[in-house]
């Protein structure tokens, strides 16, 4: 394994929290008691939870060791397709922990929260500008939450017209959250297949679009990393029957400053701040999923809305046709601060450059690996490209085997087995923050793995060998679930 940046090293085992500690230890400095104890009704008093007693050093060693078992973007290349694992600037963390922002109560009188309201107002404008839309809500707490909000807006629009519709068109390449979000709004998903070029055709949409279809959920660029070239015609088909075009903007990183979503007929689009706008992924969140809309949907947006009146920022509830609230308060403000800081740091030209370089990186990987791995669609891609394990079938080596072996080489695997339209899909999204030399190392590693597949497939079947654990028994985990200790 001469070409590997993955190497062996000492990491430490660490038990579960309740397997350590000693009764009486505490890792929290209890505040001074300056009032008397008051009686409490015995009927109301509980026994308190069965937590372990740990000292501060117990807790610090525990989590330090746990962190060392994890691979993050700061560790190395993490080319998870459609997740946009770009570098998270550290200055953004600093801004989000400023005491005036981190310590703010959401229900403060607006006169005492002008700074955060200004940030939200400006961020709404920036996102509307980037997408080519007219208005924004920052309330959704993640992409899927934004999708649900989008569906609620579509639902409110049709209700307002006096004709509720029951179906929505969803392409076969769609992320699972699309049909799941549509179903939460009572819509029945109507599937449509992509053509041989891996994109949707307006004719296929026209065949199924009718006046009982609320619209379409389109991801553009799609999950194959391809730009939906027929999106203008598709929008016309949908609009001609009174439907709306919802765009899943998870892949916005390919087209900032390059595509105008408003111009191509999108009525409503969600964004993922933890993807395109560099906020860290946190091991699974928190994210933020703002939704931008065209004027005709603005009045349905969740409330309260941030409004600027003579240099003062206000929170206004008075939108009688609003869908209501989808988060208790204003959304993930702590995440918004990071996205706002990123946009202010990058500026318009660098955001466009980021998209161009993300697309350059993906096309470069595509060209360099297409002889080695089977390329699902041999055409120019956007910010991600999709391969498959077609060439490795003869050696009985699968996408899963290759993904696991990549870990030994020091890379987080790409997204695997999605989108479903490509059997054994390997979706690689490098993002613009990977340098040429890091990408070259990734390409070399994958080439070495494919050679191993031909010469010694056992190495891949046994992979990974170097991480803390080897392959897991996921079957038993599901058959005999053990979800708490």
């Amino acid at each position, binding site marked *: 394994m001469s070409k590997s940046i993955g190497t062996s090293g000492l990491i430490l085992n660490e038990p579960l*929290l309740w397997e350590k500690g000693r009764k009486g*230890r*505490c*890792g*929290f400095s*209890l505040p001074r008691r300056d*009032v008397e104890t008051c009686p409490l009704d015995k009927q109301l008093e509980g026994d*308190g939870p069965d*937590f*372990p007693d740990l000292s501060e050093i117990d*807790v610090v060693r525990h989590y330090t060791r*746990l962190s060392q078992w*994890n691979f993050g973007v*700061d560790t190395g290349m*993490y080319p998870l397709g459609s997740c946009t*694992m770009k570098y*998270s600037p550290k200055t953004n*963390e600093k801004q989000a922990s400023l*005491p*005036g*922002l981190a310590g*703010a109560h*959401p229900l403060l*009188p607006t006169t005492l*929260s002008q700074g955060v309201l200004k940030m939200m107002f400006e961020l709404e404008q920036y996102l509307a500008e980037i997408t080519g839309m007219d208005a924004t809500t920052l309330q959704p707490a*993640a992409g899927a*939450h934004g999708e649900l909000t989008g569906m609620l807006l579509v639902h409110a629009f049709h209700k307002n017209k006096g004709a509720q519709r029951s179906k929505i068109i969803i392409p076969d390449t769609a*992320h*699972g959250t699309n049909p*799941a*979000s549509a179903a939460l*709004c*009572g819509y029945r998903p109507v599937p449509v297949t992509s053509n041989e070029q891996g994109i949707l055709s307006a004719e296929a949409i026209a065949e199924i679009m009718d006046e009982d279809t609320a619209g379409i959920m389109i991801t553009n660029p799609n999950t194959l990393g391809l730009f939906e070239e027929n999106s203008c015609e598709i929008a016309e088909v949908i609009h001609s029957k009174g439907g709306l075009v919802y765009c899943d903007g998870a892949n916005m990183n390919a087209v900032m400053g390059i595509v105008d979503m408003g111009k191509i007929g999108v009525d409503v689009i969600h964004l993922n701040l*933890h993807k395109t706008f560099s906020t*860290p*992924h946190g*091991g*699974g*969140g928190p994210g933020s999923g703002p939704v931008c809309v065209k004027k005709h949907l603005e009045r349905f947006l969740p409330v309260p809305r941030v409004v600027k009146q003579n240099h003062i920022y206000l929170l206004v509830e008075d939108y009688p046709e609003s869908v*209501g609230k989808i988060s*208790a308060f204003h959304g993930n403000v*702590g995440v918004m601060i990071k996205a706002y800081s990123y946009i202010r*740091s990058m500026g318009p*030209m660098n*955001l466009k*450059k980021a998209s*161009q370089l993300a*697309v350059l990186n993906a096309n470069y990987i595509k060209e360099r690996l297409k002889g080695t791995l089977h390329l699902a669609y041999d*055409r120019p891609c956007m910010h991600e490209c999709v391969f498959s394990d077609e060439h490795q079938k003869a050696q009985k080596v699968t996408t899963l085997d290759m*993904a696991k072996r990549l*870990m030994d080489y020091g890379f987080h695997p790409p997204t695997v087995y999605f989108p479903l339209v490509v059997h054994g899909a390997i979706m690689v999204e490098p993002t613009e923050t990977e*340098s040429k030399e890091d990408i070259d190392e990734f390409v070399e590693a994958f080439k070495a793995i494919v050679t191993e597949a031909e010469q010694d497939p056992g190495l891949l079947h046994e992979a*990974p060998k170097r*991480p803390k654990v*080897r392959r897991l028994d*996921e079957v038993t*985990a599901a058959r005999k679930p053990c*979800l*708490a*200790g």
Partner: protein
Amino acid sequence: MLYLPHTTDDIASMLEVVGVEDLDGLFSTLPAECRKKDDLNLPEPLSEWELNDHMEALSNTMAVSPEYKMFMGAGSYEHFIPASVSYLLSRSEFVTSYTPYQPEVSQGTLQGIYEYQTLAARLLGMDISTASHYDGATALAESLLMAVRITKRSKVAISSLIHPLYRRVVKTYFEPTGFEVIELKYLDSGLTDTSALNEMDDLAAVAVQSPNFFGCVEDLQAIGQKAHDKKALSVACFTEALAYGLLKSPGSQDADIVSGEGQSLGIPRSFGGPALGMVASRKQYMRSLPGRLVGQTKDLDGKRAFVLTLATREQHIRREKATSNICTNNSLCALAAAMYMASLGRTGIRELARLNYDKAEYLKKELKKAGFKISFDSPTFNEFVVELPTDSAATYKRLLEKKIVAGLSLAPYYPELTNHYLLCVTETRSRQDMDRLVSEVKS
């Protein structure tokens, strides 16, 4: 630009491999009508140092501790967060990783979340907790939808003393479903009036918050019994997770599903988000739970390990038939909560909860002595409602000018309770702070 590592040479050699003349050539497949003609109309970039100044200026406009004395809770609580927790949470292997789809290189997150699930379940007295949701409001909405799925009934009864903003989120979630949401009134004691349940049939769930929005502790056992009499599920919710360091857990009072807000457990308020939605249930409802679950298993060498499991409930497998559409949740917040609960420990959480209770009781007593009426006589935890004399808005404003935030006015949420204010006292308020509030309100 510091986040864009490509040099001109890098770009040139890569373009050559791709077979395109310039960066613009990468977008040749895009139809002209899709292209943005002008540059993005956004402000010019700030240097790191200019950004610091800009953000500090925004931060300085905000009314926060220690300059302002906050007596406001209502779903967002000021609690001390140990430096050790903030420090550990900044470890980039936790921060910059994503959903642990590849468990072999994500054991840190997976064991961390398994531990969170366990501590959360113990705090709430339940069998299973999920890996997290967005906030207490969406957790409640998802729990009610879960009850509908389990019972196959289409009506839920929710207390009007559940946080008003949570009830609005529930209504938004339920609007397109056709399921019915009925609100239960409240009594003069500041507790939910469950008498209307007697006439109801076909209920999927009865949901009550405890401590409720007025801060009063509800009898979850009795309400749960009524729900079960109607063959409905008992859903208990909360906004102040710390309460269960002291009070009887919802699980010990026969709740079927518990949902709530975990922000008190080591997560900064951040103007309301990110927060920590918590959902827990009895074992038998496991497969109906929304959201991610981490389970224990073994690897090929027999070593203990952790993995995302029961994924057949989730959107990436079941798509439109999933138990929820949730994908990215609030994993880092759940980890913060686990670190916080681990730092407090069994004795610590009890003492801290006790201190919250005693401080709130002290303020109650002092306000009573000063001649103010405590609106509801039911026992409370760290929040309670006080009635300020007419023209309370002027008093509130006067206190604000003295940098005291005297709670939350109930008027916008309960119009019949104008001049009533919801006060919150946590361990962060000193006896002096409270004495000062009382003397200023008196004058």
